[in-house]
């Protein structure tokens, strides 16, 4: 994605009040529970990912922020207001990109962006400039006169993003902006979202690509309508594993009892023959002591390294743990299937 000249945001941003929040929100559709007792807040200026598999309740969650849905129970606030009663000036500060393609196929690329700019009240001179800038931003300026129906799927998603961005909203709510995009385009979209965050905007984005969690400041992991975890991506590993994990492989018979006694070690999982998962508070601090302990007992060290599972594995572990009824983020250690050889 290219950079276009953007004016800095002029609206005051209160550092303490979240841009959006939901507290103990439950949402039922005709008796079917879509969200259950979900609580999380979107700090201003943060890039927050709402991540989970298809049907997890991600779209329901952000539709509550936009006011397209009302909670069955609980409280939702967007830019400090109840979403159902957002004032017009507040609406002007929100940019929404729905999951499904919601542009007019009979209009050209630039006509669609211009239409959305008009909807949000941009006057003619500013609209022209912003339409150009938004299209340049998503690299569609070259096809500005092409009918939207004739754009590729990826182009249409980028155009939708341009429409959400054109009025320079303070809060961007994007539902699956990378769905159906190839890896390169996905990277491009994430770069753009990060740039929006760097310009001071708050971005809430849903995705079913769990690996995209690494791009976010905060991640809300949702599955089966339940919030499994909410926090910075690094903390999600800790939640999934019960701490940080040092993998130890030795050559020789040893039961590893000495490792359990080390300071900072929470759990020890034995995976015979000769493999250990040492769940610790801080892998960087404990690893030297682990190496020293193994050498001291006279066993040959084959390898000692920190285990960093992918976000897919983390997500699967958290879901697994949730379904088994274990407390996510508790001290139970890594979910059993993460210990498979």
């Amino acid at each position, binding site marked *: 994605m290219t950079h276009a000249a953007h004016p800095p945001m002029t609206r005051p941003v209160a550092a303490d009040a979240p841009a959006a929040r939901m507290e103990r929100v439950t949402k039922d*559709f005709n008796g079917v529970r879509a969200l259950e007792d979900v609580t999380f807040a979107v700090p201003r200026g943060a890039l927050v990912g709402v991540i989970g598999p298809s049907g997890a309740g991600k779209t329901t969650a952000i*539709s509550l922020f*936009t*006011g*397209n*849905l*009302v909670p069955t129970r609980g409280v939702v606030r967007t830019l400090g207001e109840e979403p*159902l009663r*957002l004032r*017009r*000036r507040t*609406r*002007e500060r*929100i940019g*929404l990109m*729905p999951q*499904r*393609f*919601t*542009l*007019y196929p009979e209009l050209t690329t630039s006509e669609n962006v211009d239409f*959305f700019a008009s*909807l*949000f*009240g941009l006057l003619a001179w500013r609209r022209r400039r912003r339409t150009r800038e938004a299209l340049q931003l998503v690299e569609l300026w070259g096809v500005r006169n092409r009918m939207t129906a004739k754009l590729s799927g990826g182009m249409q998603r980028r155009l939708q993003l341009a429409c959400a961005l054109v009025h320079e909203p303070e809060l961007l709510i994007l539902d699956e902006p990378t769905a159906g995009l190839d890896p390169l385009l996905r990277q491009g979209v994430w770069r753009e979202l990060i740039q929006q965050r760097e310009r001071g905007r708050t971005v809430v984005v849903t995705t079913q690509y769990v690996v995209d969690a690494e791009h976010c400041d905060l991640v809300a992991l949702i599955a089966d309508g339940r919030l499994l975890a909410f926090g910075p991506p690094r903390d999600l590993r800790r939640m999934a594993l019960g701490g940080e994990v040092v993998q130890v492989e030795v050559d020789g018979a040893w039961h590893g009892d000495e490792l359990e006694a080390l300071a900072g070690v929470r759990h020890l999982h034995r995976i015979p023959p000769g493999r250990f998962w040492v769940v610790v508070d801080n892998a960087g601090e404990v690893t030297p002591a682990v190496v020293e302990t193994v050498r001291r007992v006279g066993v040959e060290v084959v390898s000692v390294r920190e285990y960093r599972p992918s976000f897919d594995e983390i997500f699967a572990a958290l879901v697994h743990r949730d379904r088994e009824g274990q407390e996510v983020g508790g001290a139970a250690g890594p979910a059993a299937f993460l210990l498979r050889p």
Partner: protein
Amino acid sequence: MLKAATRAFAVVGKELLVVLRRPSALATLVVGPVVILAVFGLSYTGQPPIRAMLVVPAASGLPTDARAYDLNQPGVLQIVGTQSTLASARQALAAGDADIIVAAPDNAVQQLLHGKQVAIQIEYDTVNPYQHAVISRLAEPLAARVNEKIVGQIVAMAGSQVSSSNKPDPNLIAAPTRAETRDLAPTEPKLIAFYGVAVLALIVQHLGLTLGALSMNGDRRLGMLALLRVAPISALELITGKYVAFVILTGAITGALVMLMTRAMGVPMLAPVGSVTALLLLLILASVGLGLVLSLVTSSESQVIQLALLALLASVFFGGLAIDLSQFAPPLQAAAQFLPVTEATRLGQDLFLRGVATEPWRFGALAAMAAGLTIVALVLLRQELMRRR
């Protein structure tokens, strides 16, 4: 062969299931036309009799009892009464209490006795070519009946008032009267003019209705409502935008059609452009409003298309295009007034072919329809934008 049949039957099964699982669409598709046909069958009463008003001057000596002139054609002709002056009969004609005036002269016998052929004046006021033909067909026997009464009077006077000096001309005895027929309407009834205006009204209504109906459904189909709920646009702004766009579009097409009718097809337009423009503008507004309301009470594009076609069908049957409304039972005549095309057809035929609206209240009815439908559409759209699950 078996595989081909399997594939074909798979399609058969799928199509049947798809249709059967949309009962509302099926109902609209089947029940709608059936209901229209049933209403048509139940309310069609046929061509009402032509109502004749006779003018029998007091001095004419002719019988003043309407029954004396009865042609014994019930269902075809009805003598609604007699008047003593042509002026009062014309008032009845203008008020719509009669379709035809047959006026005997003041002094038929005296004129005949002075050797003059008597003119029986026949007047009517229609731009409807069908009605014109029926009236023309009845004018002759009516005139003959009056003629018969005049001759009867002469015969009765024979030997008393008739002397050798004022004995009538034998040719006059053979043909004492002549019928002078006159259509008071300012234009000659022509099929192309009369039905051309009705077709114009029907096209304009269908165009406006379809544009309005498809617009809201298009937004809904695209998922645009989710965006519109978040965007700072109000229902009033949204509906105003749609109205203005469709009025411009339908107005341009209507203007072209009017030009085509008046310039290429020779349909007269006697009323001022302003009156015709006002009529067509009200028709467009009412039609777009009807379309928007239909689109807001339905949930799918196919449903709204079916309803638009039903409205077209109802308009063709009951809007006065194919069959004059007078041929239907009074309740249906009243119900048909709620179709914009009914008002527009009557007003249009008056404005184009007479130059004035003989029923100016229809302007008010059309305006009320346009305003009412706009308000309903606005309320429904506001509800749609506020609707949350």
